[in-house]
């Protein structure tokens, strides 16, 4: 089975990824990603029953250290890099629509 990236799927995935793609991009990504998936599909066919997945080359578990107090980043220096800040916080447009 060869996967196909349809324009509908491109639009759906773009919404998940918060990308406001143009119609031109939707069309070109549909073609290009279908071609990439065609190559990637070679591994879908492999029988890997019983093979454990690897998420990390050398999984380090439970890395502990002493709790040391160190200087954090300077708040004003960090906020100075934000597109908008107010009262020591990041400022964003409305999240839930107009307040009642």
């Amino acid at each position, binding site marked *: 089975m060869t996967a196909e990236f349809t324009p509908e799927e491109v639009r759906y995935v773009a919404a998940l990824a918060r990308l406001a793609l143009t119609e031109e991009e939707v069309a070109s990504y549909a073609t290009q990603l279908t071609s990439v998936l065609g190559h990637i599909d070679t591994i879908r066919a492999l029988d890997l029953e019983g093979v454990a997945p*690897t998420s990390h080359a050398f999984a380090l578990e439970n890395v502990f250290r002493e709790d040391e107090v160190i200087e954090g980043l300077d708040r004003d220096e960090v906020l100075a890099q934000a597109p908008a800040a107010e009262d020591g916080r990041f400022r964003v*447009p409305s999240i839930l629509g107009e307040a009642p």
Partner: protein
Amino acid sequence: MTPLDRPSAAEVAAAVRSGERSARSFIEESLTQIGRDEATLHCFNEITAEQALARAEEIDAAVAKGEDPGPLAGVPIALKDNLCTRGIATTCSSKILEGWLPPYDATVVQRLHQAGAISVGKTNLDEFAMGSSTENSAFGPSRNPWDTGRVPGGSSGGSAAAVAAGYVPLSLGSDTGGSIRQPAAFCGTVGLKPTYGLVSRFGLIAFASSLDQIGPFANTVADAALMLESIAGHDPRDSTSLPTQPSAYLAALGEGVEGLRVGVISDFLTDADATIEVAVRGAAEALCAGGATVEEVAIPELMNALAAYYLIAPAEASSNLSRYDGVRYGLRVDAPDVAKMNAATRQAGFGPEVKRRIMLGTYVLSAGYYDAYYAQAQRVRTLVAEAFNRAYAQFDVLIGPTTPTVAFPFGAKVDDPLAMYLSDLYTIPSNLAGHPAVSVPFALGEGAMPIGVQLLGPALGESVMLRAAQVVEAAQATGVRGPVAMSEGSAR
């Protein structure tokens, strides 16, 4: 003057430490060369001349007081522009981070500073390190000093070209699927990807966290080892940092390869250019002449690595890049509500390849596809690691080409993402396994462009791998040590 006529990093540091020459004079020389060739090559996103000269004066003052500024005293270096530098713009060659001034330094930046090295600037890359040519940079591509009509490779193309052009003897890149070794091969420099976890990634802007690793570019294997010694070692600020002490890589060099078992990966030779296959066999003969036993070995599992990588890396990237939402740093495109602001910002800030990979990664992680794609890719990753481990039970070092072709012309692959991805065919397996690998320039191929031979080692096998790399280096063809075109002022 070719880069190899210039002093090595070790020679610069020795001259500065002994007071024979000032750090300032080396920085001035570096800046002069950059001033002459940079309009053509575009290696840098930003040149930090003032800071570099000020730091050189500090180093010179320390030497005058009888202090030792460190093993890289006064050595001009260049930093890939995805490494955070406090108060100096760090863009990842993306419009979404243009103008952002990090509030902290990456650990590698701190360590190189403490070792006495002096950064002269931030080098160009494919946006967010996604690409193999620097053509995906939002600020325009870098050019290959050997032939300015060709790409320098990528994603660390600016760092590779900066060393090849003789701007600096050392630079840092990052390698997620070959982004150090492939441009090193294309530009005729040494490029080393260390074992995953050997070098702290604190302050490296994340692309695919289970694969990213920082490493050096240099003109010689010895200089690469010298730089690795300064940056390797545990860092509590990187939770994936291995709790091991780095070895004395430089001291181990020169021990030769007597008795080493070397395997030539036969699967890597079938699709490589004929001249590249000849180069790999020549390098294997040099190891044999040095006293190693050399045999061919088939590791077919490695050929599934590329497909697995193009599932795993975009999946991790789609998650890592969700932080660019117009809230805390970088670009914001205003919109009436947060969701629209996020989407408008990301649409305007990301280039085509970054969006393509975010799309691919989001797709393979989405409901219904996770097991078929992502989990399957992780199983392939296990097979790749196991196959490598079987090979390393038989061999100390493996050898193959770094790339299937030499550096290609601009535009050759830009409209065909899959063709571009295939240039990482031989570098990706080491990233999936977390193993070290190094590209060493060995011969000239098509268009008189350099060919890189790749030495691969098991986890934390850097010392033995670098010894083999140095033997290969000693046998390299004349003419492969530095481009002539730029340095003779005959650039097109």
